[in-house]
């Protein structure tokens, strides 16, 4: 083989080697992304239950938040309930660890009130889906959990109160 041809073969070998290494590295990255990390988040539902039930039984002057909710519904005035809910949940949850909360009341699947956090949760991905390539750049994702209680109004209407929280895992 002439000198020039051997140089060409050498260059081709280097290019070939680079391609092979790149392909293996890409596949290695892909298989890392697909690594399954199992964790049981649903145990934390009991935490949300505590927060919701305590919210409902929070003592006001002579009544509770539960009573205020009923009065708000019949007077169609939710301002006091909104202020109170924001005061409570903005203290419990914060922008760093739990930037998402939402509380809503429904009767026959129709919302009669809904308040939520004004924290910025956009920087977190909402799932730990292993195929979410954003996970290459960050380990943090937002785990959402919710808890619901059924309460009965004086006219026997059944209302469902739901608290949802989103915390960084």
């Amino acid at each position, binding site marked *: *083989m*002439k000198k020039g*041809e051997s140089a*060409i*073969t050498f260059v*081709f070998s280097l290019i*070939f080697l680079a*391609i*092979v290494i790149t*392909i*293996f590295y890409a*596949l290695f990255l*892909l*298989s*890392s992304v*697909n*690594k*399954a*990390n*199992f*964790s*049981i988040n649903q*145990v*934390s539902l*009991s*935490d949300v239950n*505590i*927060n919701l*039930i*305590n*919210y409902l*039984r*929070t*003592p006001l002057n002579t009544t509770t938040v539960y009573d205020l909710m009923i009065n708000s519904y019949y007077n169609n005035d939710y301002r006091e309930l909104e202020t109170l809910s924001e005061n*409570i*949940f903005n*203290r*419990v*949850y*914060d922008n760093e*660890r*739990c930037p998402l909360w939402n509380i809503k009341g429904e009767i026959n699947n129709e919302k009669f009130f809904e308040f939520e956090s004004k924290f910025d949760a956009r920087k977190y991905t909402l799932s730990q889906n292993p195929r979410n390539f954003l996970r290459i750049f960050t*380990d943090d994702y937002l785990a959402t959990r919710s808890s619901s209680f059924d309460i009965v109004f004086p006219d026997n209407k059944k209302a469902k109160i739901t608290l949802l929280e989103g*915390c960084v895992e």
Partner: protein
Amino acid sequence: MNKKAQFETSHELIIWIPRIIALVIVAGIVFFLITLPVKQSFEIDKLQETILRQRFLYSENCLAHNDGKVNSGIIDKSKFNQKNLDKCFEANDKIGVNLNLITDKIETINLNQKIAEKLDFCFDKKHFTCTNYTYYVLIQDEKKLESGLLNVAMIKIK
């Protein structure tokens, strides 16, 4: 080697390159599929911390108020002391806990003090597993019921 033979050698080499690349891709995919089900891990440290954390609020031996029935989530203020919480938290010595009861003032209790002091090192996820959760709680203080927060920070050495 004559000129024709040299040309054929180089030409053949160029022809073989795509074939070898295809072979590498196929081998890579097989490798990828084989390793896929193997790379699984089960995170139990956080689960353990969550269950231990909930004990504080659900067990009457810890903080839950008892007025004939156990009121989970309502804290008996008289139970928030070092002696009672040390007794309630009979976990292994690898977990440290920092409890903050926040009303108009903040009361702090550390369990397994030496480990709890390492909470500042939670950024090191390789060596420590940490959880931090704030509960909205009601606090029964003699006859008075008031609202407050209970922050439970835990650290476990891996």
